[in-house]
């Protein structure tokens, strides 16, 4: 049981490896698109210039060339930045893969190196939780202390938090829409209607502000392209023009509801997490929930504090025990016996011994006790005293 199942350990690290990879893909794709567009436009402009060269006056020509040059200089600058960012992401991917690869060197969970590795994993799981839940300063301190910047996806979560805040508090779609524009093809692939929902909200806000002509123009420009999939909603949106923001008519009252901004913030988070293959709950939740479940036994729920074990996480009644309250119990098709005195496992090497009163302890613990008490043993639960010879060996198959 102390062996390390590397395959299993790696299985839960998918998001850890996926985030820098997806960021890298986006970065490369964006710089590729930008460069192709800019080069193509420069080519067209220069070709036009070459044709008209003889009929142009020199000041115009120089100015046109200057314009071209500064565009290319800007492109070069952008490519330099992209080069740096991409290299950083590749480096990050390697650092993470290298950390996970260390697992192959460990032989047992009791090895100090493995325990150090596990500590680092706990730290990055906590950083992920802190970043997701907006405890940015704690996340920062954790990163500084452990030198773990490269294991944290700070930039991604910073983007999520700031965009959410903008939607929820400032009631502005600006950041969310520009993110949609950068990720349009990926959004189409997962058939997300996020962009439509944002556009619809802007449309609703125009009606709320009584800018009906502008709203109609906006709908023409931004909503009509969604008519294939969103026609009923477009129709309902247009009907909204007939209602005042104070309406009590249910579907339209709902559309004017300001809580829609919180829904949008939530939707944005869901969509961006989906694109990065991130589970919607922090990894800390998933690990704690399944871990507490795997540790939970009927004894942890017992009302008798004597059944509790101070080292057991589920027996921490004020904290983790409460979190484990509604979680399933662990499943056992084989017995697992733990000595109450030493906490050691009882098996063939350290067999369970039944005292005449029915209580069972490990042979090691009873032998040790009888050495101290001159051949006698005292049951810690009932206080009765017996000779070690009275204890009867049990066989657990």
């Amino acid at each position, binding site marked *: 049981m102390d062996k390390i199942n590397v395959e299993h350990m790696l299985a839960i690290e998918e998001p850890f*490896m996926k985030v820098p990879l997806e960021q890298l893909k986006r970065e490369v794709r964006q710089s590729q698109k930008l460069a192709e567009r800019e080069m193509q436009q420069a080519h067209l402009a220069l070709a036009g210039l070459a044709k008209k060269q003889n009929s142009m006056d020199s000041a115009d020509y120089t100015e046109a060339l200057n314009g071209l040059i500064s565009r290319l200089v800007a492109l070069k600058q952008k490519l330099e930045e992209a080069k740096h960012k991409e290299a950083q992401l590749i480096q990050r991917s390697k650092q993470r893969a290298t950390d996970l690869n260390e697992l192959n060197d460990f032989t047992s969970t009791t090895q100090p190196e493995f325990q150090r590795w596990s500590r680092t994993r706990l730290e990055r799981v906590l950083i992920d939780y802190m970043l997701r839940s907006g405890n940015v300063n704690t996340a920062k301190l954790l990163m500084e202390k452990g030198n773990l910047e490269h294991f944290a996806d700070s930039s991604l979560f910073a983007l999520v938090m700031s965009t959410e805040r903008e939607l929820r508090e400032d009631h502005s779609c600006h950041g969310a829409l520009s993110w949609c524009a950068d990720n349009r093809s990926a959004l189409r692939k997962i058939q997300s209607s996020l962009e439509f929902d944002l556009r619809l909200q802007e449309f609703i806000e125009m009606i709320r502000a009584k800018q009906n002509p502008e709203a109609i123009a906006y709908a023409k420009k931004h909503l009509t392209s969604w008519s294939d999939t969103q026609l009923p909603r477009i129709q309902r949106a247009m009907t909204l023009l007939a209602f005042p923001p104070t309406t009590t008519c249910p579907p339209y009252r709902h559309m004017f509801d300001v809580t829609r901004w919180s829904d949008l913030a939530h939707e944005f988070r869901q969509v961006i997490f989906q694109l990065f293959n991130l589970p919607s709950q922090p990894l800390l939740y998933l690990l704690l929930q399944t871990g507490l479940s795997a540790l939970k036994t009927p004894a942890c729920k017992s009302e008798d504090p004597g059944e509790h074990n101070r080292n057991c996480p589920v027996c921490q009644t004020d904290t983790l025990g409460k979190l484990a309250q509604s979680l399933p119990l662990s499943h056992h098709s084989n017995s697992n016996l*733990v000595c109450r005195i030493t906490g050691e496992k009882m098996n063939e090497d350290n067999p369970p011994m039944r005292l005449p009163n029915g209580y069972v302890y490990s042979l090691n613990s009873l032998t040790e006790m009888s050495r101290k008490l001159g051949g006698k043993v005292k049951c810690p639960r009932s206080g009765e005293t017996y000779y070690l010879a009275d204890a009867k060996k049990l066989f657990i198959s």
Partner: protein
Amino acid sequence: MDSLIRDCDKLAKHQSSAMNKAISAVDACIRSLDEAREKYHTSDTCTGNSLVKLSQSQEIVSEQLRELYNNVNKYGKHVEKTFKMDLRVIAESPAFDGKREELAQAIMLHFLRSGDFELARRFSLDSGAKGEECYSTWRQFEAMNDMAEQIRAAPDHRLDAAQEWAAANRAALERLGLAGLEFTLHRLRFLQLVETTGNGNKGSGGALEYARTWFPRFERDPDGHMAEITQLMGVLIYAPRVHTSPYAAMFAETRWAEGALEFASAFCAVHGVAAHSPLAVSVAAGARALPIVCKVSGILRDRSSNNNNSNTTATATATRHGMAEWSQQDELAVEVPLPDAMRFHSVFACPVSKEQASADNPPMALPCGHVVCKASLDKLARGTRPGAVASGRFKCPYCPGMATAGEAAGVHF
């Protein structure tokens, strides 16, 4: 994994060269346009030249970036092949809904247990979780951490505070079977004195005097420290060149970390708190359980979507909402193998019925020492199972021993 890392190195190399080529191609364009601007009055072919240059560059840039994109995708495929599990197959559990406070507290206690008091303060500020004044354990952990750090990390490895604490808590330590801590601390101090003052023949404060003051107390100790004391006194012959002596292993640097650890876990035991951070233990258990729960959820989900196809909608929906939601069950569907250090309670599973013992179905020991559950015992006695003979006597399912239900005795693990 090794090949993935190699691929990553390759990608890094390629990325740098591709981007450099693309950038220098753009740069060549800029230079050629600069030239065209300068020579406008002297030559009329330079715009044409620049146009040729621009076409070339355009080709280079698009070729380099396309190839880079392809390589990134290739690396991406490799990553995806290595990390196949999608954590999103497991249904979101509502188990922590409305329990932010308890979670925050568990995290706070983890920081305290790890000696990260600054983190605990920062987290309480950040999250609005209860602060320093609400934790009775805060001072305790601070004191423990101070003493443990003095042993482990202080340049002169100070032991006095820990020794004072151990002496003051002698009764509690003895009750918990941890009386050995006091001896451990004395041993560390003795070895330290041997190291710094030699065999201490000259006057007070030396190792010999220390041994004479403290060790006799342990000679009748039931823990049997006598053998160890004999060994420790042997060290004196070699002082001060202990590091080349047969006793060099006793002076290994790790002794300080081990001592600090023993002290910390005894301290936790006396105060009735867990020896290891419960949060860390839970997460480590989760790292073993999560992949298994994911796998089972994935299988159940596939099965329920197959059922859907075969159009048994009612049962399929039941499966999807009931079975696939692992966290809504009374018990996990499969066993999660955990290391022995993460087993805190005895669980008896009847070898006959495979059912877990409970208060209604307690484990019973047969006269031969084999243990089965009460329900299985009753079945054996009723003769409904193979191996049963008349008159309520039956054969133990695991050995030739014979028994009756009345001979079986209750067992409390």
